[in-house]
């Protein structure tokens, strides 16, 4: 009765209406463009041509798509793993009775507000191969300097590190919160059964933070796949095309070459995949917890 109250529309509609109002046109317009050969020369409805599925068909034969997807997947999976593990570890760490927790916590959230575009430029200083401090440390520890800017996988890793650095706090904050709401009694009981900290973590903490991890992972997945600012400002997509992510490629196609028809089809492929992933997540994964 309550769940079906007519008032339910009052709560739902403002937000839904907002999203529909401001995204419906862009979405439909992009979809429409993706079936045209719209570019900089013919950007009016009278002059561009309807080309059917031609744009979608040529995605398959576009060499660059494969390259950029590899980069995007590496960054997404890598950054996701690093942020989840580091963030969870930090949360575990600061879930101990540490004096001054509040101060530490706000220090640890600072990276969230460092604009990614600035972070990329900062990367030019930190990852500088000859004089950068990161290579200095590596050399100081007896290693050889890493070619952060001139080797494909190292450059991708540098982007990954910066992205992970920025977003670890996001995971940290949410997971710490999750850990702090685990009732103390559960730990007491577990500690009587088994002495090891790892066993406690595995049997008590982890299952209780798993749903939170799931949400965080999904949100991070969405954002990381779109990463553009850091490779843009730090490496210009290079060396070569090493740090050109999928969305970087969409940017170059749509907003540098102004090949809008093709760029829209590239974007739409991504949306379709995204909807499939998030639907599976909400129907399968989340359903198990709810």
């Amino acid at each position, binding site marked *: 009765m309550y769940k*079906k*109250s007519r*008032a*339910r529309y009052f*709560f*739902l509609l403002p*937000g839904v209406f*907002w*999203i529909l109002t*401001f*995204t419906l*046109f*862009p*979405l439909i317009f992009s979809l429409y463009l993706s079936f045209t050969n719209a570019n900089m020369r013919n950007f009016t409805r009278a002059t561009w041509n309807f080309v059917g599925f031609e744009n979608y068909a040529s995605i398959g034969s576009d060499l660059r798509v494969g390259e950029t997807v590899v980069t995007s997947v590496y960054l997404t999976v890598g950054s996701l793993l690093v942020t989840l593990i580091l963030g969870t570890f930090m949360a575990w*760490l600061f*879930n*101990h*009775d*540490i004096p001054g*927790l*509040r101060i*530490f*916590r*706000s220090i640890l959230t*600072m990276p969230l*507000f*460092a*604009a990614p*575009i*600035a972070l990329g*430029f*900062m990367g*030019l*200083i*930190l990852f*500088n191969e000859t*004089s950068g401090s990161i290579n200095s440390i590596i050399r100081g520890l007896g290693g050889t300097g890493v070619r952060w800017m001139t080797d494909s996988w190292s450059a991708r890793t540098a982007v990954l590190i910066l992205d992970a*650095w920025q977003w670890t706090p996001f995971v940290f*904050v949410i997971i*710490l*919160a*999750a*850990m*702090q709401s*685990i009732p103390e009694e559960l*730990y007491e009981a577990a500690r009587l059964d088994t002495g090891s900290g790892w066993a406690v973590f595995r049997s008590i903490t982890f299952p209780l933070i798993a*749903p939170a991890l799931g*949400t*965080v992972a999904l949100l991070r997945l*969405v*954002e990381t796949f*779109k990463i553009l600012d850091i490779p843009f400002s730090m490496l210009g997509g290079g060396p070569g095309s090493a740090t050109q992510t999928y*969305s970087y490629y969409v940017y170059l196609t749509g907003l540098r070459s102004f090949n809008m028809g093709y*760029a829209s089809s590239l*974007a*739409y492929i991504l949306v379709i995949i*995204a909807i499939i992933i998030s*639907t599976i997540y*909400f129907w399968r994964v989340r*359903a198990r917890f709810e």
Partner: protein
Amino acid sequence: MATLNKEAAAQPVRAVQIGRSRLGRILLWVAVVVAIVWVLYPFVWAVITSFKTQREALEPTIIPFLQFQPSMENWSAELGLGARETTLALGNSITISIGATTLATVLGTLTGYALARFRYGIGNRNIVSWVLSQRFLPPVATLIPFFLVLQRLQLIDTVPGLILVNTTFTLPFAILIMRDFFADFPDEIEEAALVDGANPLQIFLRVALPLATPAITAAAIICFAFAWNEYLFASVIAPKDAKPYTFLVASTSTVRGVHFGYLATRMLIAITLPVVLSLFVQRYIVRGLSLGAVKG
């Protein structure tokens, strides 16, 4: 109700007391220090670089006076000659971020509440996954259509225009976070109020909303971070009057290369305000997310 709210907020921090041995405590503190260093590392370099001239910016020197002669050149450029531009852009960024955050949080709370408490014929999960899918479209692909929408509304290069854009982009986050919160929060109290004859709006305003304050704060902080960091749309839609501070950050890369000193000062200026803000509200963030994210 007031007591219940207080109780929720005053829940003590549950410290897990594993590291009781001396070695354990040492290891713990080492790990804490490492974590702090990891987070502060780029900022420390930004501070050092902000006192260096362009010539010295890439030298591996750390200690002022001993290794390099500190220069106030960058700071005086930002806060002296460039003061007007700096304050203007910061002002825009603040208005845009606060405006977008407020709108996204208000709408997100309503919609999140709706998705957690009511049932809709179209399927709640479908709505949620549709909301989330909005975040998947690469923003670059919708930039030109968005431009056309704003143009029709005569909002190009205006602060309201950027508020609109950022609200649209951050709203899905707010909805998801608030939905999680309300879904996990026991609704017995609300049902009790229903029995007492309150209507859904009264229940929402008098029962649910006060309890949700911490979660709302958390959602707000996350929305704020996204709006504060947004650059791509602003660079095309608002290059003149409404340009936000990220614009100035990006412009340290000029036709004569990157000016590292300006970059460092601007990055530090950009981070100051949100960090101060987060200091004031951070206890709500953790509390809010803790209530929302667990037991999902």
